[in-house]
């Protein structure tokens, strides 16, 4: 095996994996608090990328301002989404909330088609992210270097928030027992809004980084990454932030390596994640880092 090819693929895998990880964190945070698969997370990701696109192209903002605006607006959107689509159903059967989430996902996608148009758009290149960096024989886009750094930083910040701050303590309390948390004078709604806000911020950041890496936008761009990152979150142990990062990295590595070294399986790339999901669910349903939960009768 060619050494430089291996390093090249490792670099690709690291950047794809950390991108998956970034998005998977949003799933895992929401699931940890609400036990809800936020089906619309992938579409929030799409929305973030589009807002950044319009901020740069239509509002002519410098890219950093556009990114900040996009991330902020998407965070607010996530909070609004929870209010409209999930809060009214909090005490309903799980199936109802999931159906609402699926509905929300389709609604955002199709609104995207109506408002943004179905034709793909391409992001103007930003030199900081768009230059090719060489390390010996390995060459990567500079954005691929930024993504793992962002993911690492975010992981550290989130672990600090959840583990060391008062808000984090409230989050853990709500996740363990909503009613008991409420009795302890925790504003459950605020904690949930905060979680959705942070999750959506990260989705927006993921979406922007995704379009830096693959500079094409279309309203359905969030569907596949959304599903894959959910799978990454499950693999790592859903509800566990470090697990989501681990799952994302693992999924990225497996995808890249299989396609690189078993090219005859390229056509099956999109099925890989699902196969992995089913294997993990059969072998260790709580995921790699998840805690096993006993079912009370």
């Amino acid at each position: 095996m060619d050494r430089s090819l291996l390093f090249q693929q490792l670099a690709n895998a690291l950047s794809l994996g950390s991108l998956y990880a970034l998005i998977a964190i949003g799933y895992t945070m929401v699931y940890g608090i609400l036990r809800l698969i936020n089906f619309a997370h992938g579409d929030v990701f799409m929305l973030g990328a589009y807002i950044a696109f319009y901020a740069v192209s239509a509002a002519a903002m410098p890219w950093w301002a556009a990114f900040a605006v996009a991330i902020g607006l998407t965070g607010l959107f996530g909070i609004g989404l929870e209010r409209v689509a999930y809060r009214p159903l909090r005490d309903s059967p799980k199936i109802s909330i999931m159906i609402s989430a699926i509905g929300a996902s389709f609604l955002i996608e199709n609104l995207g088609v109506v408002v943004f148009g179905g034709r793909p758009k391409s992001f103007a290149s930003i030199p900081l992210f768009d230059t090719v960096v060489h390390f010996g024989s390995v060459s990567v886009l500079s954005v691929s270097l930024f993504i793992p750094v962002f993911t690492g930083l975010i992981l550290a910040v989130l672990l600090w928030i959840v583990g060391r701050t008062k808000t984090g303590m409230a989050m853990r309390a709500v996740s363990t027992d909503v009613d008991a948390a409420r009795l302890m004078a925790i504003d459950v709604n605020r904690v949930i809004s905060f979680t959705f806000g942070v999750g959506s911020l990260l989705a927006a950041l993921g979406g922007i980084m995704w379009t830096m890496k693959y500079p094409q936008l279309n309203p359905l761009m969030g569907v596949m990454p959304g599903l894959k990152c959910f799978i990454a979150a499950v693999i790592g142990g859903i509800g566990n932030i470090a697990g989501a990062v681990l799952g994302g990295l693992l999924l990225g590595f497996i995808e890249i390596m299989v396609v690189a070294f078993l090219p005859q399986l390229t056509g099956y790339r999109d099925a890989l994640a699902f196969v992995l999901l089913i294997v993990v669910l059969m072998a260790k349903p709580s995921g790699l880092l998840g805690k096993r939960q006993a079912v009370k009768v």
Partner: protein
Amino acid sequence: MKKRNAILTLAAAALLAGLLALGSRYLGGYAMRILNLSAIYVVLALSLNLLNGFTGLFSLGSSGFMAVGAYVSALLTMSPEVKEMNFFLEPLAPALAGLRLPFIPALAAAGLCAALAGLVIALPVLRLRDDYLAIATLGFSEIIRVLITNAQSLTNGAQGLKNIPKSATTWTVWGTAALAVAFMALLTRSSYGRMLKAVRDDEVAAEAMGVNVFRVKVASFTISSFMAGVGGALLGHMITTIDPKMFTFMLTFNILLIVVLGGNGSITGSVIASIAVTVLMEAMRFLDGPLNLGLVKTEGLPGLRMVVFSAMLMAVVIFRQRGLMGDRELTWDALADSGLLPRRRKGGAA
């Protein structure tokens, strides 16, 4: 009472047949096509409702089983010449190239193959529940789609199949739909149907009463896959072309919309919603075209129609979770009680 209901059911079936005969004579091809499509959706909605509404298993895998059914029946009914025309990139596997069955046996084979796929998937997946089950079934339907896309010599891959015999006539689709309704009505009233509902309402209690929960779930999943396969096959024989892109999650979404709208666990609800949604989907096509709302004029917004339907799904789940019918049925007895039917003998509570 029983006799009256049986007579009324037969009369209703005869009336439906008469209306369909009149329709196929006087309504245009387009209108009949939509009616036939709604019959196919009846079969598909009942298939999902059996899982979702009656057994309490939230599955999102319909489109995968439909794909299996559609491909099996298409490959079994196409003539050798048409097959040769279709498979120009890579020849069809020789075992299938010469094989040809009439439409009805092919339909049954499609159902059986889908049921087999369902059984194979059910054994591992049904150990999961709720949202995990939903994601795993969604994953399997996606895997089936990827397999079909890549099995060039078996399915013609991404090119799909063209010139499938147009055998899904008004009589076959409505006949199948009627069979599906009758089967579901009999099933849900039998002791087996009560077992399904027991599993849905409380697994532990059902197990304590001696119900083999896992077996009931697997059976329900397999039957549902059979129906989805037959529905998918009918769809293929109606549109006459199929390709892997047709069987995405989008298709499952449409069926889920119908089931939720009609009411989880209501057969008549599913039937009514199937017809209503199919007709509405067509009627609202104008939304995607140019609009003139007096003040606002649009150039045509493709996608607006689906916006309306997804908003509808959310509105139903949020404001009227039970859908149209809840888990109740529109039966002759219920009609009699509401005074819509003349009552000769003393019926239930007035």
